[in-house]
């Protein structure tokens, strides 16, 4: 029984961490899969969203859920403008020029946030009902983790339906699989990409806000978790929503378990594990399936 509770709490904690990874990374995966665009500034959009969410709560007293919506909308709008004005110019450029461009954006984002808001960490104060613990029947657990899991499930189901059941979802899937063919069918891939890009950045913004409780929020956010987001995308496979979801959960749970039972190994295991997974399935664990 004790062991059962132990394993359950480990899985809950890991899944909650995985949900944050999923929410931030899914947009990155889809945009990379669609256009092959290497957008290292994805973390900067997550940071922008996180700042909007936390600052609007702290300074204007906006409630948590409306603040999340605000963060999503503003970040999506900003990324829409960026995509049309700047990103679109680089679709035909090499991956490395894209890297240069997006890293430049990250530097500018870090410096701007430092200068405008300040270098300090921003505190997310959760509504009282999300603080503390909740009784799950067999064990007590952190309320916010359970909330994250619920939100994550809602989002993944919503995305899955959107991908599987809508016209635009079908177009995205078609483009990921064969872009030239899709274009020759008369589908406007550029427009598709603009929509996906804005939506993906909005998701990243949600992730930035939702994750601030665990990961904090400061100007370096744009850079310091990027590696984890990229790992999730690589392991999940490019342009695969469910792939990213399972990869995020897998990494979340494994990372949690290893930290809990073998803390002395540091990050050794998570990087080692990623290497093994990628060598085993270079195209991602869940490549070759439709979504």
């Amino acid at each position, binding site marked *: 029984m004790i062991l059962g509770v132990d394993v359950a709490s480990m899985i809950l904690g890991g899944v909650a961490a995985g949900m944050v990874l999923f929410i931030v990374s899914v947009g990155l995966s889809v945009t990379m899969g669609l256009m092959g665009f290497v957008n290292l500034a994805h973390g900067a959009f997550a940071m922008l969203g996180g700042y909007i969410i936390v600052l609007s709560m702290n300074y204007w007293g906006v409630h948590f859920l409306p603040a999340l919506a605000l963060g999503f909308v503003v970040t999506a709008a900003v990324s829409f403008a960026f995509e049309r004005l700047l990103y679109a110019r680089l679709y035909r450029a090499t991956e490395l020029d894209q890297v240069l461009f997006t890293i430049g954006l990250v530097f500018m984002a870090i410096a701007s946030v430092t200068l405008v808001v300040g270098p300090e960490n921003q505190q997310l104060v959760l509504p009282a009902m999300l603080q503390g613990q909740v009784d799950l029947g067999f064990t007590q657990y952190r309320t916010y983790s359970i909330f994250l899991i619920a939100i994550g499930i809602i989002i993944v189901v919503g995305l899955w339906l959107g991908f599987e059941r809508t016209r635009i979802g079908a177009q995205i899937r078609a483009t990921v699989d064969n872009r030239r063919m899709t274009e020759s069918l008369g589908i406007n891939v550029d427009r598709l990409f603009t929509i996906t890009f804005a939506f993906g950045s909005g998701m990243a913004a949600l992730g930035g806000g939702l994750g601030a409780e*665990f990961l904090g929020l400061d100007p370096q956010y744009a850079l310091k978790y990027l590696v984890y987001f990229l790992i999730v995308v690589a392991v999940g496979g490019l342009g695969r929503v469910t792939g990213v979801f399972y990869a995020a959960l897998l990494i979340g749970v494994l990372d949690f378990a290893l930290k809990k039972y073998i803390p002395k190994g540091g990050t050794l295991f998570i990087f080692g594990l990623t290497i093994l997974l990628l060598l085993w399935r270079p195209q991602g664990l869940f490549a070759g399936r439709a979504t």
Partner: protein
Amino acid sequence: MIKRIIVATASLVFAVGCAQAQEVKVGVVLPYTGVGAELAQQQDRGMELYLKMHADAIKPYKITLIKRDAKNPGGADAKIAVQELLTQDKVDILAGWNYSPNAIASAPIVTAGKKLAVISNAGSGHITNLSPYFVRFSFSMWHAGYAMGEATVKNLNAKTAVVGYTDFPPGKDMLASFKRAFEASGGKVIDEIPMGGAGAVPDFTPFFQRAKDKKPDVFFVFVPAGDHSSAVVKTYNALGMREAGIKLIGPGDITQDNKLQAMGSAAVGLITMHHYNVDLDNLENKQFVAAWKKAYGADSTPDFMAVGGYDSMAAIVHVVRTLKGKIDTDKALETLKGWKYNSPRGPIMIDPQTRDIVMNEYLSEVVMQGGKLVQKPIGKIDAVKDACKTLKVGPCAN
């Protein structure tokens, strides 16, 4: 004609000579960008605030700060900054150093450059041994860690402890110092949990769950000042460790003053050992905090980083005044060795042997008073020396 040129040159040289006697150039090396930017801001403000508050006392001398970004803890950028401050800007005094690796990497240049180097933060125990020109006005990790180890048994009556620490040298120092004092006083450390590197805030849940499962009397946590502390307190609270009867204790980094209020009621009951908190009851601190709020806004709170910067500048001003603006490094060092001063953290002294700080350590408990979190004093140890050097531990022995 030639005579006129000579006269003109001579008067020019004379003028420059006078200006140099009046102006003291201080090179400040801090990580103004990157993960340490927030800490650099605190220290920078502390230094500037001292100059502002004591402008009259500094006259007729002029202290010019030349600020350089140390950028990252890699050593090389800080080292280049120090080298250029010495060779290009010809500074009279060096100050700053936030990350220990940067102070360690800069040590050979400081030694070669033969200038007084005032450390305002870097806390790895042995740093002051690396160059005879280092004088430290911050702390060694052993100050708080060792004092806390003793107090945990004596004041808190704890028998068992789990130590969670950020896995980099200050964290390891903190573990070593706490464990040594705690076990010497009769306690037992039953688990040691490294909790990720200093660069990014990890999700603390797995580490804290492990600690909770071990059921210790106290959970001693060290995380670097900055982003980590609020995540620590939130996780402690959210996992119900308080209800499980486990006290969260640590050095003052977990109740860093400028983060404390945002932690809310979750922080009530935290017990820390540190050389400074904003609620310390002494005249200097009251003046310091009031001036800080006036200069940087009511929402801004100084913390121990700011005091490190403030005291460093106090020491520099003391040197400048004593030496009448003509900075000779050996004389400056003599001036500071054994120097006593009333800092916002209480009385401090520079140990003449080690050039490290001697100061009080305060045991405090976080309580809620009038809707505000306050650090209530529950114990004090006077004139604490760096135990790392007293006990000759590891590299501190040299």
